């Protein structure tokens, strides 16, 4: 057991260095950095840029669908938009922004001076960055189905054989493959780094059982990255072989199998959902206790639930394939595994509820987003259970109901938790608070927009509207819903603009944050804002899961109970 006296000394930190260098030297410093904090900020900025691009693509689709027989864009452009929107949002927004936050916060939270492999970390970022640039270069250099396109237009899961050379003439599909292949290498490197850092870089006293849940959840994230990105990478290489070296893996005209691509893609694709939601859970699990002023409820159960979600998530992929004609036994297996994952997920929601129960909840902006997350993730989980019912899925799969469901997960769950994370950790990253007033405006605009768009999007799905159609007939009962959905997008866009403005204006003129603006309990709040190079003047030693609680409450420290 470490000496309790040693803790306060670890809190002595150096003042922030801010040597004023010439502009070019500062840029050079960022490009060549291996510092986890700078890489984290670069990941986040890069993802925000793509968030705006992906958002514009979504808005173009919504304008086209605002009324039946609309003539805003051609089918070719529409098909490129949904392909690029999906690919961008998953691979170049959600993953990098989450990796950015984990990169920034994880070493600070476990009392480390950097990630385990700082250079690999930088390599991972630059691979991801290059992947995005290559994908978007296709707008200039690619051409798509029937040689008519200029960007990938095969859908974000690029089902075979639409990707075969005979159907996807030109190079847009190649840009898609190579872009994802390269960013996939970067993600695998980052996954290795997360797992190694969590296992090897924890500060003295932080046993696995005293590690913040943030680290546990992202241990699962990192492990899933290692398991899931491999099949995607393999499939992309096989597809390249098909397209250029006369391979027949997926080319059905030469005896290949379209189903094999589906399996490869979803063996990656479903764990990918959990790669994205685990960091979101991690944010919620850190933020909810701080703003409820209570310790997390049921720490060991939360760990167990996270790990079992990780395991089960590897065996549910074919619930994306209920309509491909699997046998009744095959379908039943994936119904069972998919429903099983609802149990540990439910346990997490109940434990967050248990954390708030009996607390003194402070409704600052991060907590507003967390509370919205809880309600929305509950709904998203339940529509997920409906879709897990294979016969129900035969109706709802591939319809707007599915689109509504996964946007409920990704926007209502992941993006809301990310906004919470922005408001919560921005003060640590910049040394300044984000404006509470603008934050509330952002919250309400985005909340209204989100619900207008994605609540109502379930209905056209129930009314038989398939996804990925650029136009539709009047008289199907879809018109009004599509109009409301599109209006919601305007509110969401307004919310995002307020958010971006808030980031810039608060960075320049925000209220100084101090070390610990939220009166929080994990190690990142013990160092200065922003933290100095190498984070801690002296490596901290911890006795419990909430080291700062122990310091603030010496009469009633956590380590007495754990």
């Amino acid at each position, binding site marked *: 057991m470490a000496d309790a006296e040693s803790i306060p000394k670890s809190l002595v930190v150096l003042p922030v260095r801010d040597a004023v260098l010439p502009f070019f030297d500062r840029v050079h410093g960022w490009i060549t950095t291996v510092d986890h904090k700078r890489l984290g900020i670069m990941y986040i900025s890069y993802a925000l840029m793509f968030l705006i691009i992906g958002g514009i693509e979504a808005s173009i689709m919504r304008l086209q669908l605002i009324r039946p027989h609309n003539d805003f864009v051609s089918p070719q452009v529409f098909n490129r938009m949904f392909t690029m929107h999906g690919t961008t949002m998953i691979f170049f927004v959600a993953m990098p922004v989450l990796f950015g936050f984990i990169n920034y916060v994880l070493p600070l939270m476990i009392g480390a001076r950097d990630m385990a492999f700082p250079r690999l970390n930088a390599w991972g970022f630059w691979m991801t960055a290059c992947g995005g640039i290559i994908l978007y270069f296709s707008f200039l250099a690619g051409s798509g189905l029937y040689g008519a396109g200029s960007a990938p237009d095969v859908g974000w899961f690029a089902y075979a054989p639409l990707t075969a050379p005979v159907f996807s003439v030109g190079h847009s599909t190649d840009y898609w493959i190579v872009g994802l292949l390269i960013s996939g290498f970067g993600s695998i490197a980052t996954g290795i780094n997360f797992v190694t850092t969590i296992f090897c870089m924890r500060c003295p006293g932080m046993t696995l059982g005293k590690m913040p849940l943030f680290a546990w959840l992202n241990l699962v994230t990192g492990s899933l990255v290692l398991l899931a990105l491999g099949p995607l990478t393999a499939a992309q290489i096989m597809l390249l072989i098909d397209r250029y070296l006369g391979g027949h893996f997926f080319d059905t005209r030469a005896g*290949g199998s379209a189903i094999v691509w589906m399996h490869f893609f979803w063996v990656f694709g479903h764990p990918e959902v959990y790669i994205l939601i685990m960091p979101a859970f991690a944010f919620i699990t850190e933020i909810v206790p701080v703003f409820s*002023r209570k310790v997390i*409820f049921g720490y060991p159960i939360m760990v167990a639930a996270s790990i079992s979600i990780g395991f089960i998530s590897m065996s549910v992929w074919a619930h994306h394939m209920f309509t*491909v004609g699997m046998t009744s036994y095959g379908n*039943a297996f994936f119904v069972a595994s998919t429903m099983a994952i609802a149990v540990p997920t439910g346990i997490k929601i109940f434990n967050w509820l248990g954390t708030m129960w009996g607390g003194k909840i402070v409704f600052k902006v991060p907590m507003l987003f967390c509370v919205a997350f809880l309600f929305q993730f509950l709904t998203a989980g339940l529509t997920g259970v409906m879709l897990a019912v294979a016969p*129900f899925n035969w109706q709802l799969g591939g319809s707007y109901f599915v689109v509504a469901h996964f946007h409920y997960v990704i926007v209502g769950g992941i993006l809301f938790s990310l906004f919470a994370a922005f408001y919560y950790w921005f003060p640590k990253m910049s040394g300044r608070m984000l404006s509470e007033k603008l934050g509330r405006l952002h919250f309400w605009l985005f909340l209204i927009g989100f619900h207008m768009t994605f609540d109502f999007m379930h209905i056209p799905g129930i009314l038989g509207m398939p996804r990925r159609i650029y136009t539709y007939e009047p008289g199907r009962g879809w018109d009004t819903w599509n109009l409301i959905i599109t209006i919601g997008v305007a509110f969401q866009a307004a919310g995002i603009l307020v958010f971006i403005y808030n980031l810039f204006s608060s960075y320049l003129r925000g209220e100084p944050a101090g070390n610990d603006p939220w009166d929080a309990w994990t190690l990142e709040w013990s160092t200065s804002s922003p933290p100095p190079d190498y984070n801690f003047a002296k490596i901290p030693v911890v006795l419990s899961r909430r080291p700062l609680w122990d310091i603030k409450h010496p009469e009633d420290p956590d380590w007495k109970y754990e």
Partner: protein
Amino acid sequence: MARLAFGQTLVESTPTSIFSPASTPADSIYRLSLFVLVICAGIFTTVFTLLLYSVVKYRRREGDDGREPPQIYGSNQVELAWTVIPVLIVVVLFLATARVIHALEDARFPTGTTEVTVVGHQFWWEFQYPQHGLITANELHVPVSDPQHPTPTHITLLSADTDHSFWVPRLAGKTDLIPNRINHMWIDPHETGVYVGQCAQYCGTQHAKMLLRIIVQSHADFDRWVAEQRQTSQRGYVTRGRQIFETTACINCHTIAGTNAHGTFGPDLTHLMSRETIGSGAALNTAENLRQWVQNPNHFKPGALMPAMQLESQDLDAVTDYLLTLK
């Protein structure tokens, strides 16, 4: 089970609602979905109420003393409760689901079942009736099925190019058409009428206008339709339009039985005028639309694989007149 109120007002009045089933597969799914919806609504209401209660009740009040609330680290009893109850719910849901999967996927078919083979093409549907030796496109005719003496239609699904999905929500859930693979589904529509649907798996540029019409007929009407479709030899006269048709690229892709047009890349046109729509539902089958379609298919369906035939205006009229005779 009582139908949901919102279902009747919003959902059931539309032609492709999954909540107005007219065939056994769609109806089994509908009943199962109501059961699932009721359970999910129960969970939603319970958890929503608890969440709402906790954020309202436990918010920090005005004039708070600033002391931290009691720190509760967990409770094994509570954790056990909220693990076991969801497990039980999942078991119930799974059993209900497995029952319907088995009933629909492993169904046996009575004699008198109509066999149809559907072949998906970019961006239209080919329908083959092996029992009757006839081929048509885009509008599927099937006999009505009396629930007491069912005469279902068994559908074999194939694809000529990319993935497609056959979805007519009021009759059954969707099943994909995948190249190099044989899939199956079945329907037994309980009422005559027209049921609409469309391709539900992205298949390329014109996925949106790969629409489906299923025309459910009484047995007498269906038999009459079959007999009409089997007649092929009535076109003894040669028109200018037919001559143009048979001497241009039209015959590379289209079949007209009894002529030298044997193409299979596009829809069979032998009985074109027995169909209500052209371009797989892209436009009504009228003389003007037909002429416009032959002149430039992209007018109705940008990205359709049929090329504009670049015919002179008089030739266009003649071909249209010829097509109009294909009753």
